[in-house]
């Protein structure tokens, strides 16, 4: 056998952050999937709009602006502790990670609670007509995201407090923050559709 050269990788670091990690690409895949679901649901909304002379149909009132707008502000504000969590994770700073994740969770509790009021002020039930169905679907889809984001952030926070804290958990913290960004930013078009489309159209 002829001599075989080697490529020694033993000195490479056992992990990385950002787009260099596998987790990032996994998260990106999930973002594509869920982004497509949101986009198609919004598409379905506007498709139904074209089928009616007036929107919302049958003289229904548009959803009340107050709670939805409040929640938009809460969600946007949560981006600040979220970004600080992300940075703390990237710097492998357990102390800060713990602090900012708890703050994030407080925000998550807040926007999940406000969401209940949003549902109560849509001014239509899901079984009233297709307009009610699609509005509830849009809000419901986003709600499943803020609930799951709250739950998996809670688990991660618990892990960071209870330990054993493994190194790669900091990558998880970072990717959790990336996903949080997606959940908040995806809300903006949905907010526009649910609350403003009936007023503008």
């Amino acid at each position, binding site marked *: 056998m002829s001599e075989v050269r080697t490529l020694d990788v033993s000195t*490479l670091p056992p*992990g990385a*952050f950002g787009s260099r990690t596998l987790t990032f690409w996994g998260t990106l895949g999930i973002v594509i999937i*869920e982004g497509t679901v949101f986009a198609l649901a919004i598409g379905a909304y506007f498709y139904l709009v074209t089928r*009616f002379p007036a929107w919302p149909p049958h003289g229904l009132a548009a959803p009340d602006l107050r709670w939805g707008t409040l929640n938009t502000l809460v969600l946007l504000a949560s981006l600040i502790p979220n970004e600080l969590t992300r940075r703390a994770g*990237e710097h*492998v700073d357990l102390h800060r990670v713990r602090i900012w994740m708890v703050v994030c969770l407080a925000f998550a509790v807040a926007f999940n609670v406000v969401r209940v009021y949003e549902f109560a002020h849509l001014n239509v039930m899901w079984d009233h007509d297709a307009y009610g169905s699609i509005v509830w679907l849009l809000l419901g889809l986003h709600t499943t995201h803020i609930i799951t984001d709250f739950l998996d952030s809670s688990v991660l926070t618990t892990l960071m407090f209870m330990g*054993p*804290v493994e190194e790669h958990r900091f990558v998880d913290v970072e990717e959790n923050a990336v996903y949080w960004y997606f959940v908040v930013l995806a809300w903006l078009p949905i907010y526009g559709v649910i609350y403003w489309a009936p007023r503008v159209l």
Partner: protein
Amino acid sequence: MMRRHDPSIGGDLERLEETWADPNGWYGWFMHVDHKSIGRRYLLTAFGFFLLGGVLAALMRVQLSRPDNTFLGPDLYNEIFSTHGTTMMFLFAVPVMQGLGIYFVPLMVGARSIAFPRLVAFSYWMLLFGGIFLYVSFLLNAGPDVGWFSYPPLAESLYTPSKRADVWAQLITFTEVGSLAVAVSLITTALKLRAPGMTLNRIPIFVWAQVVTSFMVLFAMPAVMLASTSLILDRLVGTHFFDVEHAGDALLWQHLFWFFGHPEVYIIFIPGTGLVSTIVATFSQRRMFGYLPVVLSLVSTAFMGFGLWVHHMFATGLPQLGESFFTAASIIIAIPTGTQIFCWIATMWSGRIVVRTPMLWILGFFAIFIAGGLTGVMLAAVPLNTQVHDTFFVVAHFHYVLIGGAVFPLFAAFYYWFPKITGRLLSERLGTWVFGLLFAGFNLTFFPMHILGLHGMPRRVYTYPAAMGWGSLNLLASIGAALMACAIVMFLVDAIRAYVAGAAAAHNPWNAGTLEWATSSPPPNSNFPSPPTVAGREPLWENPPGQAVVVGLRADARDVLVTHVLDAEPDHRLLFPEPSIWPFLTGIATTVLFIWSIFTPWGVVYGAVPVFVMLVGWFWPKSAHEGGTQLWPFAHRMLPRPNETPAAGGAI
């Protein structure tokens, strides 16, 4: 970094095999995470569903073999054709292609594992449980009976009050969750786990095909999940998405469904073309001609595949301008496919061809698939489409495309890779018979259907009057189906015989050029005791003597080399997860949730609790020393700062 090295790692090799082994025993069987093990399960399970779907097809052919037949009643016939289509699309075609991807993508890119192996294991359980759910429902007389497309209002509870349409909708959820997860894993594997040196322009075409397909899955499958969820909501909690009486719209379903349904055809067919490119190159003994045009064809097919959905809706009476756009799109998509066909022919033209069984299937693929592609061009023409849409002409067309474009390449792949998977060779002589019989049986079954469609026979009819004059051609088709059944039985006999007592296969029996042939047959647990690096598109043909191998990965942990997306330069190492029971348990909990939710919306709420518990179990650290990771407080920080450049392995 480069030094001379003795490739035999000696004692480490045993340790390495032990590290990468899945646990034994019946309990261990539920914990497998090795992509080869999961891939084999995928292939076997999908093939099992192919056989079940085939049995249903045979029943339909018996019923239609003569006019006014009473072998099957309308109710059972409708259930059978719906379950046949649902099985073949969701439980066979997509999973079998993904199964090949799970098994071969890591091997072809020179990786020790697929990315997110536990997620892939979970996907398998989703496929298996979904399939079992469908067939148990079928046996309980609750199989879907509203077609694989499940159009409302027919699928709404007013017209289908039984649980049949719900079973269909939840089967979709099962299989799509699995497909989406596998797609993410395959993309990540191909982008991040390639052997050093495998730059973008050296990725095997089959891997390209899997990546392109996986991206299509990410964009297409959400549409059908959204649609089927809306349908379940309509049926379960009284929403009105598709209910005309309450401002809903029946065509909304068709838009959503075909936004998925048309790309679905390419999701099945693009991996098939990847197989053809692989096998044509090997048996022509030259690298594939036109690598760039072929890869671009795959990508452009994927893009265009999303612009064609309306050509399933020409009969709904759309405005003419819209129709013309979709006609043009549907016709233009023939260009990339044609380009690929010409490149294959050019490869053969300038190659040194040896015709063995895999190549026979590829030749069969050409004849059948080209015919199917051409009838596809006919169907793109709106006026002609309105005549033959929903007739047996279309049944003939898509069986030519899907059996020609996917099943024949799959059989080719089976004969091609069987030695790699099992270490044994199939019989060339029996293989030739199987091919001949299936080719003849296929054409005898499906060619007459073109004529039947033109003579007015609609799809999905359980019987027809004798006066229609469709009897003799239908009988011919049924005889062809019997021939196909014989071919499949012979194939099973050969496969089982070879598995038990076939001749031992060399590591590279076809003298192929891609990396899966660089390891033993079957591959060891770690895939590559010394992970390869590559210096060409067909490394086994083009690597210079003494091409470097990767060293320095731990033998006592599942240490994997992660590389850069574009140039596949070494980036960092990553410890991969151990075998685990949690994907199985999560699969069980998810199954409970899905089935429960058919009966009450509270099933989603209560059913989510065990799923959540299982997921926490999945991600919870198992022990202080799992895989030997560093624990807080870290003795010294192993993770670099984000802007630090890692010490790369240097030039290869």
